[in-house]
């Protein structure tokens, strides 16, 4: 079982969406829906705590894998993430991604928190800080207008080198 307290939130993104909590929950967990707004990736998740979680490329290969830490529809969905689809990245410790859905004045407040169990360099955090605003802006458009945004899913400059350095040095082994 994943010890959530070992993870420190590094990136938090909040967006408000004109939809119901159930619609936002579906957008986050339904493969046909994530394919629209999440750079073509389909979610594949066992709907229970401890269940397997994958994000798959359109051809079915695994991009991300993990475990469901919390499954509380339509309020909270939390799972661990390991990047499988890019060399080196899979050697990094898993991170914890949590979506929180709260009603807010006829709309919904969606909060995404990306948390890590080690002291992650800024160049690696940059991946999520670049990606989440695009992904969740696209989710909001898909729910409100039926049309997702076009988003780029490439790692930002400097991230791949930073991952290689981290994998070589393994700072997470020293820290505790």
């Amino acid at each position, binding site marked *: 079982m994943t010890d959530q307290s070992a993870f420190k939130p590094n990136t938090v993104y909040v967006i408000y969406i004109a939809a119901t909590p159930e619609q936002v929950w579906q957008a986050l967990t339904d493969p046909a829906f994530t394919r629209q707004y999440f750079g073509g990736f389909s979610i594949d998740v066992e709907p229970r705590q401890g269940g397997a979680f994958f994000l798959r490329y359109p051809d079915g290969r695994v991009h991300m894998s993990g475990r469901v830490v919390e499954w509380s529809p339509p309020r909270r969905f939390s799972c661990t993430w390991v990047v499988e689809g890019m060399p080196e990245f899979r050697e990094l410790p898993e991170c914890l991604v949590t979506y929180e859905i709260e009603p807010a004045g006829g709309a919904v407040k969606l909060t995404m928190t990306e948390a890590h169990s080690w002291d992650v360099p800024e160049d690696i955090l940059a991946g999520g800080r670049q990606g989440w*605003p695009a992904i969740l*802006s696209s989710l909001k*458009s898909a729910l*409100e*207008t039926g049309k997702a945004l076009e988003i780029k899913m490439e790692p930002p400059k400097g991230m791949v080198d930073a991952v290689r350095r981290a994998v070589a040095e393994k700072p997470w082994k020293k820290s505790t």
Partner: protein
Amino acid sequence: MSDKPSFVYVIYIAATAEQVFEALTSADMSERYWVGNRLQSDWKVGSPFALQLKREGNRVTGTVLEVDPPRRLAYTFHSQHDGLDSEGPSRVTFEIESHKDQVRLTITHDEFPPGSKVFEHINRGWPLVLSSLKSFLESGRVLRAPWYEEADAA
């Protein structure tokens, strides 16, 4: 990391840079997506800036620092309401980048005085205001937050 707080928020909008710049400067458009709050300025560098809040007598004032349509806009931000007027001004900067038929809008709100109370307010406020601006430009809808109702009732 410096201990000076800084708020950075990015949102993508299916609109042109010109539409986003207009929404960030138009009194009438702001009144809709900012749900009753109204921007007031002639948007010349050095001119006064004001955000007239819906609650009577409440406003944010400042000075226009940069105007480069449709790419960049900056002003100082000095809250005059809820006992915040004794706190010195901070700075708001918008950057608009176009990618095909969509825009990446970045707000940086920084230069807060030490121990700023305004910082807490804007952390809660900007994600809602910019989410509403996005909805307004993409679908003509606007978003309201529960604390607007609380403020109306107060």
